[in-house]
């Protein structure tokens, strides 16, 4: 069931378009990430849904009601900001009760709901403290409790974890998923961290220069990126460009790469993407075991970066440079200058749409 619906949203700042014709739906109870680099319009889209920005064109509907021109206070949203935005002069209890009081919930009922919300974010007993007596992670939990205690129609998160350090961020990611599932709130999450988006979301929307370039489940957007931008922004990628032939593309050096996906018309130019971790290195000199991966090119290792559990190689091949992620499971890591064979499956060879 669709809960939040945006239709043909456009917004310009002066003559600069920030969002161009954005249409998408957010399913009831789903967790959607808006992912993109800074300036992609992801925060603007979130703030249009919240009501802080009125779009130049298009409509926003929450729970079936058109709210495009409705002021923020009337929209029944919950929002968490990167800077926490707790009220510094109020205690934790007063902060969480603020939204309840605006809905006429006071006294004992309010106290009970505040207590339940603080339990949900694992901060029971912190109610009498002032925000500045709490750590960053605790403050963000209070902000989350304050946003969900009012049972909003939609929970909007504006890079809520980016001010936390790495360890705390990972901890809060797990908490966030738990709280979101327990509360069942439709959640829209703005982030520029691709790993965070993949970990947390049911759906990831990738934005680039004011447009949604791809939206889908994390596996879908990662494994089958539609455009060069989507492929590049969501992790590392190797690109190969060639002429389309039957069942694959022919590269400039004459070798053919098989593609297990629909391709443009034979004879036209096409680019395919191959994720570095999908490539297996076969050491030509040492024999190595053969694999049934039917795409193979021979290349020379040009660099090797050791990172304990994994290695990142670069291999030169016909003037191109390939990036390969390998688990540190080989008997002996490959060294620079080794002539190797790179193999991968046609399934992992993803044709991209031509750039717009």
């Amino acid at each position, binding site marked *: 069931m669709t809960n939040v619906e945006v239709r043909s949203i456009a917004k310009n700042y002066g003559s600069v378009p920030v969002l161009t014709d954005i249409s998408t739906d957010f399913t009831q109870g789903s967790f959607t990430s808006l992912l993109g680099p800074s300036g992609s319009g992801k925060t603007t889209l979130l703030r249009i849904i919240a009501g802080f920005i009125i779009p130049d064109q298009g409509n926003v509907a929450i729970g079936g009601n058109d709210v495009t021109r409705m002021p923020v206070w009337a929209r029944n949203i919950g929002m968490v*900001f990167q800077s926490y*935005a*707790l009220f510094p002069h109020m205690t934790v209890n007063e902060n969480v009760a603020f939204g309840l009081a605006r809905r006429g919930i006071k006294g004992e009922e309010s106290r009970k709901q505040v207590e339940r919300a603080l339990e949900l974010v694992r901060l029971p007993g912190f109610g009498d403290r002032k925000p500045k007596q709490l750590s960053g992670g605790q403050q963000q939990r209070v902000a989350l409790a304050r946003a969900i205690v009012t049972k909003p129609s939609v929970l909007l998160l504006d890079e809520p974890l980016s001010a936390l350090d790495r360890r705390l961020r990972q901890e809060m990611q797990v908490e966030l998923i738990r709280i979101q599932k327990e509360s069942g709130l439709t959640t829209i999450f703005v982030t520029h961290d691709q790993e965070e988006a993949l970990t947390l979301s049911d759906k990831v929307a990738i934005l680039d220069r004011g447009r949604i370039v791809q939206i889908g489940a994390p596996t879908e957007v990662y494994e089958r990126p539609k455009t060069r931008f989507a492929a590049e922004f969501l992790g590392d990628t190797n690109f190969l460009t060639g002429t389309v032939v039957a069942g694959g593309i022919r590269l400039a050096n004459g070798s053919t790469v098989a593609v297990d996906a629909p391709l443009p018309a034979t004879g036209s130019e096409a680019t395919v993407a191959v994720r570095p971790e999908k490539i297996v290195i076969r050491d030509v000199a040492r024999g190595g075991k053969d694999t049934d991966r039917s795409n193979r090119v021979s290349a020379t290792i040009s660099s090797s970066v050791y990172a304990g559990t994994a290695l990142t190689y670069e291999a030169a091949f016909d003037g191109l440079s390939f990036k390969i992620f390998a688990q540190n499971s080989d008997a002996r890591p490959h060294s620079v200058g080794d002539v190797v064979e790179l193999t991968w499956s046609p399934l992992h060879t993803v044709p991209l749409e031509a750039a717009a």
Partner: protein
Amino acid sequence: MPLDPANSTQLREPGGSRKPLPPWASTAALLVPTYGWLTLAVFLPLCTMFAFSFLTATPMGKAPIVFTFKQYRAFIDQPYLLGVAWQSLLMGFWTTFFCAVLGFFAALALVRATEGKVRETLLILVLLPFWTNGLVRVFSWTMVLREGGFLDYAIHSVWPGAGSVGFLYTRQAVVVGLVHGYLPYMILTCYIALVTIDNTIVEAASSLGARWWTILWKILLPMAAPGLISGSVLIFVPVIGSFMEPRILGGRVGVTMGTVIEDQFTQAFNWPLGAALSFTMLAVVLGIFATFSGVLRRGTAL
């Protein structure tokens, strides 16, 4: 950039084996000029005046100087002074009140509705009263407030049949002049308090369902309380002692502690009485602050 070897030697040995100063010494060195100057320019003259307040006459003529407490009995010997003191406190209260209301909203408008060059210009305009001569500023109000003055002229140009609303030589006129003179303090202290409030705090409040008046009363006003309080203290104290505005704009009714004290120094040449009255008022003001210190502290501690 390669380091010059001669320089690097110098860097390593700055004048032999000099030890760094202990922390208390550098702290003292930084504070001494300020506190030395304050002692010389404020504390010592105040002590002198305090000593004068126990004398029978100004120690400048040939009259014999005798120690006495009688100056401090002025409020008992001359009961009309109680009325004057009460009027001065009322004047201080109303001036501070109007400054707080006008100053808070002016600061709020500056912070929330302006930015960049416009805000800079408006802030400079706020400071304009500071740059004009106080006497000129107050006398210009007499031109506005007198019968047939600019205020009347403006009203009559819209409504020719209206009577005069000129209220020069009233207590209201004094408050108008004082508010004009002291408003910048309140605007600036409130501005400083409001400008530090992150906009996302206001956005968070409205996302939780707060309308503008709730944001004003529950968020902005409490968070700007330190500015309001320090502005009020900055205004209340000098207003109680003011004598120029009451004298020029208040005329016959403009008798305040400020004018009475000024008279003792400039007209009656009774410095001991003037000093005693000043210290009595100081005690009253400190008493008022002590009474409300709990409120003041709670307001300033976020």
